[in-house]
C-alpha cells in the first residue's frame, strides 16, 4: 500500500486551501489600496488537475518543474468580478472576502480532520491495540 495515495486527496487539499487563504488574506489587507484588484483561485479546477496526475506522474524534484502545485495555481489565479466599483479602482469587497476566508478556513479544518483520522487509524494499526 502506497502511503501517500492512501492518505487520499486531503494532503493536497490542505496545500491548496492554505495557498487560497494567503490570496484571500492579501485581498483583505489591500481593502483600502487604490487600484488593487481582488483575486481568487478556482479550487475545483486545481484539485481536478492535481488529482488527474495520479501516482504514475513524473516526479517533481524542483519547484520549476512543470506540474508543480504552485504553477497550477498561478495559472488559475483569476480576478474577482466586483459587485460594485470603487472610484479608486479597488475591487475588494471586505464582506465577500472575509466570508470566503472563513469558508476556506472551515474547508481546511474539515480536510485536516479527515487527515487526522487517517493518521490515527494508522497508529491504531501499528500499535495493534
Amino acid at each position, binding site marked *: 500500500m502506497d502511503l501517500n495515495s492512501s492518505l487520499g486527496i486531503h494532503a493536497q487539499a*490542505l496545500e491548496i486551501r*492554505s*495557498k487560497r*487563504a*494567503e*490570496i484571500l*488574506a*492579501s485581498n*483583505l*489587507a*489591500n*481593502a*483600502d*489600496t*487604490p487600484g*488593487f484588484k481582488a*483575486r481568487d483561485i478556482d479550487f475545483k479546477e486545481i484539485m481536478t488537475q492535481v488529482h488527474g496526475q495520479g501516482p504514475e506522474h513524473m516526479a517533481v524534484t524542483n519547484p520549476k518543474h512543470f506540474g508543480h502545485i*504552485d504553477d497550477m*495555481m*498561478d495559472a488559475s*489565479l483569476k480576478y474577482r468580478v466586483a459587485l460594485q466599483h470603487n472610484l479608486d479602482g479597488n475591487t475588494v469587497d*471586505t464582506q465577500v472576502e*472575509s466570508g470566503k*476566508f*472563513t469558508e476556506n*478556513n472551515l474547508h*481546511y*479544518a474539515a480536510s*485536516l480532520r479527515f*487527515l*487526522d483520522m487517517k*493518521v*490515527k487509524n*494508522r*497508529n491504531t494499526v501499528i500499535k495493534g491495540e
Partner: protein
Amino acid sequence: MSFKIFDIASMGMSAQSVRLNSIASNLANAETVSGTPETAYRSLHPVFSTVGLTQDLSDDFHGKGVKVDKVIQSNKDIERRYEPGHPLADQNGFVYSANVNVMQEMADMISASRTYQHNVQMMNASKEIMLQTLNIGQ
C-alpha cells in the same frame, strides 16, 4: 497553513494604524487656526500601495502585502474667518482654519478600524487552524 498570512495581516494592521494615526492628528487639529493661509493645518491622508512578499515582482501567487506609499496633505481650500479679536488674526482681522472635514474623518476612522479588525480576525483564525495542524495525529 502558511506563515505568510501573518506577514500579510500584520502589514495590513500597521498600514491601518498609520491611517488611524493621521485621522487622530486631523481630528485633534480640526479647530486649529493660524495667522496665514500657508501655516494653516492641512489634513493628512495616507496613500496605500500593494507590495509583494517575495523579491520576484512578477510572482503574483505568493500573496501581496500592503504598505503606506506616502502621506499626502489635502489641497482643499483653507477657510478664512473674520475674527478681529483673535490674537492670531492678521492685519485685516482674518484667521485661517484647518481644512479638516470632521464628518469625513469620522467615517474614515470607522473604515480604518473595521479593516484593522478584519486583519486581526484573519490572524486569529489562521493561528487557531495552524495550532490544530500541529496537533495532527495526536
